[in-house]
């Protein structure tokens, strides 16, 4: 379904973001792409929706070479690939319902069908009845759910979620992950780009790890029955941030300072 073949992406300043990346994703797969910030995860997603062109290599989706398609067909490709953005990209002055309506209108749904679809989507992502609220009236997790609802509104064959839990707490992150898993169970191919170690441990399918634009590992996920526990692999270790300062002893100067401030 998706084939990245010898993909290299460099920018005019000489930065190589992706370096000879090769991988394929089959229909219905759930793939987690991991890597530190700047490893090239977002670039992969942008290449997938033809927001960027590779410097070298070929990307094929459903037999269509993205390098070769005419500009007028780019919107059609983008409708095939639902995209969940790290910063949500929910239009702030439109209600949640209106945001989803845009995606549905782009997908060619009629007015009557749109209302039914919005109700169904919001129920599916766990925020039923919130279509009349503005993004500013929702929590971060709820906005991300709305963004997912918008991304899957036109039932795309592929869903690319770029750091969907980047701004969320652990529990909400797990809820979002479970939602993506549910979407995957319904038949959508899901690619999740993340550096959230909590999520990596939840994926029973496939993990691709990127470092400095190169794929350093492409392995199946957790063995059956181990879901929910992060595997202690080099992949996880590389994503856990190193402490910048030595840990403070409990009840030490930190506590003392707080006491002084509170006076």
């Amino acid at each position, binding site marked *: 379904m998706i084939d990245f073949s010898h993909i290299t992406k460099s920018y005019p300043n000489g930065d190589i973001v992706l370096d000879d990346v090769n991988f394929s994703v089959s229909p219905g797969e759930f793939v987690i792409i991991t890597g530190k910030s700047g490893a090239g995860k977002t670039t992969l997603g942008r290449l997938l929706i033809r927001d960027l062109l590779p410097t070298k290599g070929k990307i094929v989706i459903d037999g269509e070479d993205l390098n070769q398609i005419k500009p007028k067909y780019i919107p059609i490709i983008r409708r095939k690939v639902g995209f969940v953005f790290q910063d949500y*990209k929910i239009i702030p002055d439109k209600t949640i319902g209106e945001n989803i309506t845009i995606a549905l209108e782009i997908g060619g749904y009629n007015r009557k069908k749109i209302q039914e679809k919005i109700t169904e989507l919001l129920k599916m992502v766990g925020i039923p009845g919130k279509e009349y609220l503005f993004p500013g009236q929702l929590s971060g997790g709820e906005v991300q759910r709305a963004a997912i609802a918008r991304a899957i509104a036109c039932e795309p064959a592929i869903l690319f979620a770029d750091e969907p839990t980047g701004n969320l707490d652990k529990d909400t992150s797990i809820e979002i992950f479970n939602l993506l898993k549910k979407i995957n169970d319904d038949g959508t191919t899901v690619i999740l780009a993340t550096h959230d170690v909590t999520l990596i441990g939840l994926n029973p399918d496939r993990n691709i790890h990127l470092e400095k634009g190169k794929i350093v590992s492409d392995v199946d996920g957790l063995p059956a029955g181990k879901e929910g526990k992060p595997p202690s692999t080099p992949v996880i270790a590389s994503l856990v941030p190193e402490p910048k300062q030595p840990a403070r002893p409990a009840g030490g100067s930190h506590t003392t300072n707080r006491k002084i401030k509170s006076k």
Partner: protein
Amino acid sequence: MNTALKNIRRSPFQALSAVFIISLTLFVVGIFSLVTFASHIILLNFETKPQIIAYLKDDHTTDQVAGLISNMTTTQGVKNAIYISKQDALEIYKKSVGNDPVLLGTVTDWGIVTADILPASIEITASDPSAFNTIVSILEKSDIVSATPQGKKEIDFPQDVISELTKWTNAIRGAGLILIIALTVVCILTVMIIISMKISGRRTEISTLKLLGAQNIYIIKPYITESLIYGLSGAFFGWTFSYIALLYSTPFLAPRLGGVISFPIPFWVNLFLLIGLLAFGLILSLISSLFAAARFVKRSR
């Protein structure tokens, strides 16, 4: 439509300036259309009316009249020449005073108005105003054309009124056309800048729409709709202002042009004007928004 209306509500002053400039342009277009229409009717009136009238002596004979008419019709630049008898002259007089018994009974220096006191005449319509001098010189030589006691032949002709009128109306039309073109260009540029600003102001939203797979037409449709709303409302206001101007100027114009143009101006003229201005407003706003959208499409490739 909803997005377009929301865009208008969000920036009411930009919308107001767009509607104002379109209204102003179309008001001027409306006024000049009416002026052109009126000048056309005035010219038509002058052209179809006899332009040279030669009054005849009372003792003329039918043969003499026939000879003069024949002479006139064979002269180059003469469209037609007709004989108006004393009785015909009375009928024309009656028509011009509207059968008013007071005016018909007016006692003049020659007594009460009857056919006897009105002179017979020959009325000549020229197809070319430059033939006036030739026609007048033929009439002056004719024996049956009456003369004043000072010996001056009684010939009425507007000299070069028509050519002057044509010259003036053409000058007014030319000036109007230049003004309309200038205002149209300003109008297109203003609306284009306003729409471009609106598109620029929502660049982030537009980039999101593009990432969601929206076609350019989907993205620019609300802006084109917004521009069309400006065009239609501007046209309507422009028409309203020109209609009000026409109503206010009717008491001034009616006595001066009453014989040529019927006042009040018939409703169908105003209806045609409204339809014309709406069409012009639509075209104008469509061109403006398409220019703005084309710039956006070019930049967002």
